[in-house]
């Protein structure tokens, strides 16, 4: 039974219980953990010791890339590849270049935000072991779940299971792979 487990999951009735349990899990030194709740819990990041996402930096880099791509495209078209005089203005007319540069900045940053978010979340994910637990469906309605994965360096089936049971949840489940 202890072979081929994705992890051990505990079920809680309230958000407060989940956050308290998450703090104890973090303090016990577990790192490969996850929490599930029907609505966003701002406290849970801190309680589980989840680090800030790198996504903002990726988005910033995406925005800069868009800005430079816009400038590069316009330089290539208007100065290098096909220079024609428009309205008596110089080939390299920065004020006129700004709107496309701005648009591409937004576009690249937005794409990085959406796809980066999906990628960092490991989505799309057609199969996830937690759904092997029937009661887990309640995570979208009224129950709160906490998971310690078997990949955690501190994971030991017997010890982790009894630790999870000591957290005071409703029930503790073994989650098969």
């Amino acid at each position, binding site marked *: 039974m202890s072979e081929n487990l994705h992890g051990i999951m505990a079920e809680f009735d309230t958000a407060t219980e989940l956050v308290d349990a998450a703090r104890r899990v973090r303090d016990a030194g577990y790192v490969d953990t996850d929490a599930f709740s029907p609505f966003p819990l*701002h*406290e849970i*990041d*801190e309680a589980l010791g989840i680090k800030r996402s790198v996504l*903002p930096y990726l988005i*910033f880099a995406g925005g800069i890339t868009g800005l430079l791509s816009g400038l590069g495209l316009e330089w290539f078209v208007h100065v290098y590849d096909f220079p024609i005089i428009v*309205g*008596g*203005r110089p080939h390299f007319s920065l*004020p*006129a270049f*700004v*709107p496309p540069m701005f648009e591409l900045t937004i576009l690249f940053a937005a794409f990085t935000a959406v796809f980066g978010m999906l990628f960092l979340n490991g989505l799309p994910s057609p199969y996830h072991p937690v759904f092997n637990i029937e009661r887990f469906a309640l995570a979208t309605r009224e129950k709160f779940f906490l998971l310690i994965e078997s990949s955690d360096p501190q994971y030991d089936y017997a010890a982790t299971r009894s630790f999870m049971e000591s957290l005071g949840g409703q029930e503790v489940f073994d989650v098969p792979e």
Partner: protein
Amino acid sequence: MSDVSKYQAPDVVNRWRTLSLGVGGIGLVAWAVGTFFFPEQGLRSWLLAFVFWGGLGIGCLGVLMLQYMTGGAWGVVIRRACEAGTRTLPLVFLMFIPIAIGVYTGTFYEWTHLPPTDPVVVQRGVYMAPWLWIVRGFFYIAAFMFMAWLLNSWSAEQDKTPDVEMSRRLLEKASRFSGPSMVLFCILVTFAVVDWVMTLEPHWFSTIWGLLYVAGWGLSCFCFMVALMANLIETAPMNGVLGRRHFHDLGKLMLALVMVWAYFNFSQFLIIWSGNIPEETVWFLTRMRSGWGYIGVALIFFHFAFPFLVLLQQDFKRRWKWLSWIAIFVLFMRLLDMFWHIGPTVRISPGAIAQGSFYVSWMDIVTPIGVGGIWLWWFFGQLMKRPLVPINDPYLEGAIEHGHSH
């Protein structure tokens, strides 16, 4: 009733009030002496101070209506300070008197001296008659005062009613009033700033002018609120109200308005640059040469790029000390922006420097300090009159909690 005294402004506000009056008084005396010798310069500097500080009062009205429409914790915690800002509008009304006198006597504004055959004078006709211009100016401020009076009286009524249903209804009334009034507000601001600032260059026009000031004054208001709240958070009662998340939200709004300011300004520049018509480009040509050009570049970097990059960072917005420093910095840039609008315009008194020459008078520095001192003295006086938070607002508890969450 115990809540009323619980949320009373701390004593330190009274000290700031006295200090402001002292500084403002000295500044005003200096202004009066300067204006006696150089009336045009004195009035131009007064206009600069009026557009900056009066704009802060008008901006507070806009933000007050905005927060009634959108709701949100940030609006609940700054509502009372915004209301105090709108109650400075009677002072703004008085501050318009020197400008009215200046126009009536033809001491400043080039259009008061244009020949009657000038196409602008012919076309605009009685609309630009000095008496009508002056009446309009007072009317705009009176209209803002009326909106502010309504919103303030509903809010005061809410403080007196312990009934939740009643205070909810007052809140609803205020938000229903704010929607249409916001539209009227933007139209009035457009008319007002076209009269007060754009006509300094009587032959020049820009259709985005009003929005530049709607966004600019809104930004001034948010910066002022952040600086004020960061100075109140350490003492009771606001130490139990404000949290870092409130500053995070206000910081986001500052970021948004910094971007809107840049967006509107660039739109104006791009359209005029693309059109390339001499009567329009002259405004930018004057402001891109000599010292004015350096100010223009400084505005791009320090009114937009620097605050933009700094405010992008979450940590920065959550630390109120840092955020208040950037807010004060942006307020200085707001003043510089106003100066960039007003400073290069035509002077009419004999012997005055030619248009386009770079010139900063000592009065351009002293007058905003003097007027600012008086404005702040009035503001702090108003702030002390009511509890610092809307005590019976049904959303108050949630708003306080929001600030302390993660």
